[in-house]
């Protein structure tokens, strides 16, 4: 084995998700994240942007015989105490609001809660800097 190979084996990943909850790429993102942790790697942050914000919504109702991806994400993030950040600008535009934002904009519904956190694009850049690899799912 070449010197240095072993130290590179365990990686810090930042994972960005851009597609809606029902998109195949969202399922692949979760499968990748699960595999990364199972392989002993670290996830420095999950960052949900564009239509990816929908995967953090509490209001998605999946038919009983289909995989409930938003619930799977929520359980995964909670169980592993991951940093799950949803872009605030992208979320507001798509009607994904936590208690604070619903109050701020006087909207009747709250559909984002712990373990998810609303924050800005600086969190994406911060994650890119902290990670060995940025892995993106979704997008055009």
């Amino acid at each position, binding site marked *: 084995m070449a010197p240095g190979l072993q130290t590179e084996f365990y990686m810090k990943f930042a994972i*960005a998700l*851009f597609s809606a909850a029902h998109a195949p790429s969202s399922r692949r993102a979760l499968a990748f994240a699960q595999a990364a942790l199972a392989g002993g790697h670290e996830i420095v942050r999950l960052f949900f*942007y*564009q239509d990816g914000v929908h995967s953090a919504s509490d209001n998605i109702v999946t038919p009983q015989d289909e995989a409930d991806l938003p619930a799977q994400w929520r359980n995964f993030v909670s169980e592993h105490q991951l940093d799950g950040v949803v872009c605030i*600008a*992208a979320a507001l*535009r798509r009607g994904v609001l936590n208690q604070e934002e619903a109050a701020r904009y006087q909207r009747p519904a709250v559909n984002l809660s712990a373990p998810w956190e609303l924050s*800005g*694009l*600086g969190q*994406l*850049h911060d994650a*890119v*800097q902290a990670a060995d*690899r*940025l892995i*993106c799912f979704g*997008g*055009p």
Partner: protein
Amino acid sequence: MAQSLLIISRQAPWSGPGAREALDIVLAGGAFDLPIGLLFLDDGVFQLAPGQKAAAVQQKDLSANLQALPLFGVEQLFACGASVAERGLDPAALNLDEVQVLAPAELGALIDRFDQVITL
């Protein structure tokens, strides 16, 4: 040494919030003084078309935001020449003076130069 990030913007300005949201990543990175590049590819080159009338389709004009890129310290601006040509745009009359038009064969080397890439 900060990791460099290339954003590949592939959406037309009128196709939804995709173009704006790609640009927002670039501007945020510039505001943090990070090494950021922006490549306009495929329909993304429509963001560089001169004479846009965004208000006619009830959109905000992105052009002014693009002009602000050098002010945010984002000077690595590129467009795919093939994408520009395929869409009938004049590479000499794009709406962003600082943009470098690259041949398709140069794109691989460009992407290689950056540590991380986001395509939107």
